[in-house]
């Protein structure tokens, strides 16, 4: 702490990184160590010179300035360098200049340039670091440099990996195949009769895709909410015997790849399904294809989403203060009256939340419609077919994606409007002590009647998943045990040359494990950091920042997938077909979950503990490590597990992003389902689920879920006071 600071270590770190990445590292993704911005700029790519030149100016400033961070020239230079970097990166594409002005300025730009490499990305990162340093010196984030760097870098990442792809996709909807603006094409696309047709309500023809999507969403949300409510009432308000089993059941869908239920339904009810055959023999009718289409998707979705609605409604029910119901009883109301006048009105917000949640999930669902759809198209599958396969039509896919995104955002907006941001709090909300009112008997029987078929169905589906991979042909009820399917997928040989993996599934399994293992800690880190920034830091634009992260959560996976296709298969960020793009897509899709877990945990912690740490000389990073992280361990665990599990089971975004070299388990299974290899698909799914559970156990072992004991509960009470 001296007043004659020239440049300190942190700033020197960023500056050093900047110099190394413009002078020493390969600027492009393709190219050797020698091909840095400086050397290329001096030979035939003069548009790289401004970045290199500004880098040297910054270094020179560091040598002469007395107080570098506060020097009036620092921010202008950094911003100019960032602008120069972005302008050349986006202004000159693979086939020459995108901005004609750059073409006249730099004739050699006509030969184009490839995507940015290590040097380019690290130079960008270093400039962002310097920007955050300079801003912190001017009071941004209360002068806290670590927080400032986190804000700037996370905003940049979100912009690059969430908003830029969506914008690029949006642009694709308004352009034609050559990339020229074509409003006419957009009008044509968005008014296409196969989008909005209402024929299914009046005839046996099918409706438009949008109508189908909405119809499915509403039906599926209605049924899932009703079932969820029945379950929640049974668990919270009766002495129903199988409560624990019901709670356990609700965890299953989280670890179930989304289309597995669909496959099980085909095995049960498909053309040659078990029950179909059985029914056909019983009633002597020809087996039908009724399960393909709305009915089948609906069954699968209700099964998949009911646990979510159940958890939301259980949270709401448990948060209802029983004294209210008691009060009603002491005033002489009968159970049914109490329920309809007290419990039901208090439940309504929870019901709305559950409905919207299921609706949003249904809009985003890709796995079930693609397995069970038959001729019933919904937006997510239609988008997929528009970019995969022979009829590649990005403009059309983009238009459909924009419609899907619009619908989702409306539902999301309604959810926020209705419930504020409290909806995740109610999920865990616990009530005061007190006796809950028993349910009116009539209601109880209705609930049981609704729940029993659901339970039976769930058990049937999961028995098939567990059993199907290990018997010869479960569809035809040939229950001879076999490891044949597993062996096809995972055969190996332990020979003289060591372990050799022959099975067809190994590649995708290993990629999946890699991607999950890489993305889980990254997702957790970015999610928790973001939560900490939003909950604890004070910076201009914090509200917008928070809103942006929430928005990124609302984007359906299919839309993310197709937007990545639109944005990242051309320079400057050309990462299609790599494992990086898979990891990145998971990190930014799942990050909001980690963030929510982090925010909920931080809300429980008195922020003056962090402030105490700061006054004792710990900067943001040390405070985070020494004080915050130890206290929010459960949230870290949640974030890790969630992101790991989602990376293993998600299909909607990755299906667009996998490549022959980097295939993922879910995409592979999907392929088997399309080929009708159900047994193999089921066997692989079962293995996937087992691996997942094992990994979760491992994470638990590593992170530990140790809660601070009851003794600390005492300070917890004082700590719960809001900081002044």
């Amino acid at each position, binding site marked *: *702490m001296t*007043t004659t600071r020239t440049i300190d270590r942190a700033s020197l770190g960023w500056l050093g990184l900047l110099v190394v990445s413009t002078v020493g590292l390969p600027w492009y993704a393709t190219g050797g160590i020698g091909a840095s911005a400086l050397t290329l700029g001096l030979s035939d790519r003069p548009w790289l010179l401004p970045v290199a030149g500004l880098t040297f100016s910054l270094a020179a400033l560091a040598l002469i300035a007395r107080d570098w961070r*506060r020097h009036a020239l620092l921010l202008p230079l950094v911003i100019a360098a960032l602008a120069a970097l972005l302008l050349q990166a986006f202004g000159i594409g693979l086939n020459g200049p995108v901005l004609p002005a750059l073409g006249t300025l730099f004739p050699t730009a006509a030969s184009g340039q490839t995507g940015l490499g290590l040097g380019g990305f690290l130079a960008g990162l270093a400039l962002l670091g310097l920007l955050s340093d300079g801003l*912190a*010196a*001017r*009071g941004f984030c*209360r*002068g*806290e*440099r670590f927080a400032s760097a986190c804000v700037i870098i996370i905003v940049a990442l979100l912009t690059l990996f969430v908003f830029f792809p969506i914008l690029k996709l949006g642009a694709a909807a308004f352009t034609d195949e050559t990339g020229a603006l074509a409003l006419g094409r957009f009008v044509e696309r968005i008014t296409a009769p196969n989008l909005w047709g209402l024929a299914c309500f009046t005839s046996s023809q099918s409706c438009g895709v949008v109508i189908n999507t909405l119809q499915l969403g509403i039906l599926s949300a209605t049924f899932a909410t009703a079932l969820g409510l029945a379950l929640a009432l049974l668990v919270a308000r009766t002495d129903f015997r199988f409560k624990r089993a019901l709670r356990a059941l609700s965890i299953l869908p989280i670890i179930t790849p989304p289309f597995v239920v669909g496959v099980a339904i085909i095995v049960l009810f498909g053309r040659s399904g078990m029950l179909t055959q059985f029914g056909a023999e019983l009633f002597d009718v020809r087996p039908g294809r009724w399960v393909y289409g709305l009915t089948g998707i609906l069954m699968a979705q209700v099964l998949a989403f009911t646990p979510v609605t159940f958890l939301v409604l259980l949270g709401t029910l448990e948060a209802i203060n029983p004294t209210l119901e008691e009060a009603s009883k002491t005033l002489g109301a009968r159970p049914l009256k109490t329920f309809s006048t007290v419990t039901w009105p208090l439940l309504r917000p929870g019901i709305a939340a559950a409905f919207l949640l299921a609706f949003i999930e249904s809009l985003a669902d890709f796995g079930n419609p693609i397995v069970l759809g038959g001729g019933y198209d919904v937006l997510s599958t239609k988008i997929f077919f528009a970019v995969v396969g022979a009829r590649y039509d990005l403009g059309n896919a983009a238009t459909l994606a924009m419609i899907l995104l619009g619908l989702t955002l409306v539902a999301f907006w309604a959810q926020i409007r209705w419930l504020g941001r409290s909806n995740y709090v109610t999920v865990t909300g616990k009530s005061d002590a007190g006796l809950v009112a028993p349910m009116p008997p009539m209601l109880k029987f209705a609930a049981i009647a609704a729940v029993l078929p659901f339970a039976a169905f769930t058990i049937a589906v999961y028995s098939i998943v567990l059993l199907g991979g290990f018997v010869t042909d479960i569809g035809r009820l040939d229950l001879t045990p076999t490891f044949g399917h597993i062996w096809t997928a995972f055969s190996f040989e332990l020979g003289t040359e060591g372990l050799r993996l022959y099975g067809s599934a190994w590649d995708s399994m290993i990629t999946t494990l890699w991607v999950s293992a890489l993305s889980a800690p990254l997702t957790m880190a970015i999610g928790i950091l973001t939560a900490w920034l939003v909950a604890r830091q004070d910076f201009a634009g914090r509200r917008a920042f928070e809103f942006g992260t929430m928005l990124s959560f609302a984007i359906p996976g299919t839309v993310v997938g197709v937007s990545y296709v639109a944005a990242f298969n051309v320079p400057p960020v050309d990462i299609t077909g790599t494992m990086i793009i898979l990891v990145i897509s998971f990190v930014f899709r799942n990050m909001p979950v980690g963030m929510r877990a982090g925010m909920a945990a931080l809300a429980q912690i*008195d922020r*003056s*503990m962090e*402030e*105490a*740490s*700061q*006054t*004792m*000389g*710990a*900067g*943001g990073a*040390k*405070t985070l490590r*020494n*004080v915050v992280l*130890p*206290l929010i361990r459960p949230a870290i665990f949640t974030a890790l597990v969630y992101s790991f599990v989602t990376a293993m089971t998600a299909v909607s975004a990755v299906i667009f992003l996998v490549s022959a070299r980097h295939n993922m388990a879910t995409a592979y299974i999907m392929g088997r389902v399309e080929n009708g290899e159900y047994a193999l698909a089921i066997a692989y799914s079962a293995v996937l689920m087992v691996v997942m559970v094992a990994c979760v156990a491992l994470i638990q072992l590593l992170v530990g879920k140790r809660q*601070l004991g009851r*003794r*600390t*509960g*005492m*300070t*917890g009470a*004082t*700590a719960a*006071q809001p*900081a*002044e």
Partner: protein
Amino acid sequence: MKDNAETQDLAIEFVGVVKRFGDAVAVDGIDLAIRRGELVTFLGPSGCGKTTSLRLIAGLELPSDGHLRIAGRDVSRDPASERNVGMVFQSYALFPHVSVLDNVAYGPVIRGVKKAEAHAKARGILDQIGLGGLHDRLPAELSGGQQQRVAVARAIAQQPDVILFDEPLSNVDAKLRRKVRSEIRALQQEFGLTAVYVTHDQEEALAVSDRIVVMDKGRIAQVGTPEDLYERPASAFIANFIGDANLIEGRVMAGRFAAEGLDVPVSGADGPASVSIRPERIALDLSADGPARIASGTYLGSRMEYAVTLGGTELLVSRPISEPRLEAGQPVALRIDTGGVTRLS
């Protein structure tokens, strides 16, 4: 910290400091100099900006305008971690996951002192503060008072330029307050610390401070020693806020203040004026033809407090408990100690 800080005796300087939160102005232009080794109290009604001023010193907020110097160095843009200011939080803010010893050693360890050395130092301070046997406990295993002392020990252990207390007694049992506050005062003097103390309890402020800064709506209303403020309040707000006061409107003419039934000497120019008279500076004379009447009496244990009407005004008068009680309606004469009359601006 810095050599030239010795030449100038100031620990903290506020120069036109303003803090805005959006549209709200929490601190509205404060100029204040705090000397080394001094204990200064920020006193004022709720929401007047005491905590905000304290947090500005700590670096937990940065001023929107103006400058702040600590030990001669301008720290207006420095974050908390780059200042050297210890703070005792209202909720104590002990780290629940580490032992008492690690809590106290945290500051030195963060600043690069070796762990063993920091622990030795923390032990020394804990022993000195009377918490010798509790090193290995977790904060949750201590009583409230002990937690408070650990918080103080932790702030002292970092050898701060300034130590800050934000309402340190608000979580302490009412009976213990007097004891704890004199302990804090003793520690502050023993370690020669510059301290800033926030409270909205005027008695506490009078008891511990070298000087008191009374704040009102984000501004400084008056600065002075406890005696200054009590005996010579600058405004009706101060007179009312610190202790009880009779505020009387009237006129000054030729060095005498006159109001209905009152005539006392004051200083200053002629014209309309108001004065403050403390209740204990008025004595009551039992004379049958006195101009005033007892309206009511309140028993306060250590003294009696009477409401006395004099013409149209009602005055508060306190009287030792050993004197005979007075009945409501009784006529009395007032004898005013002229040293206790303060003209308000």
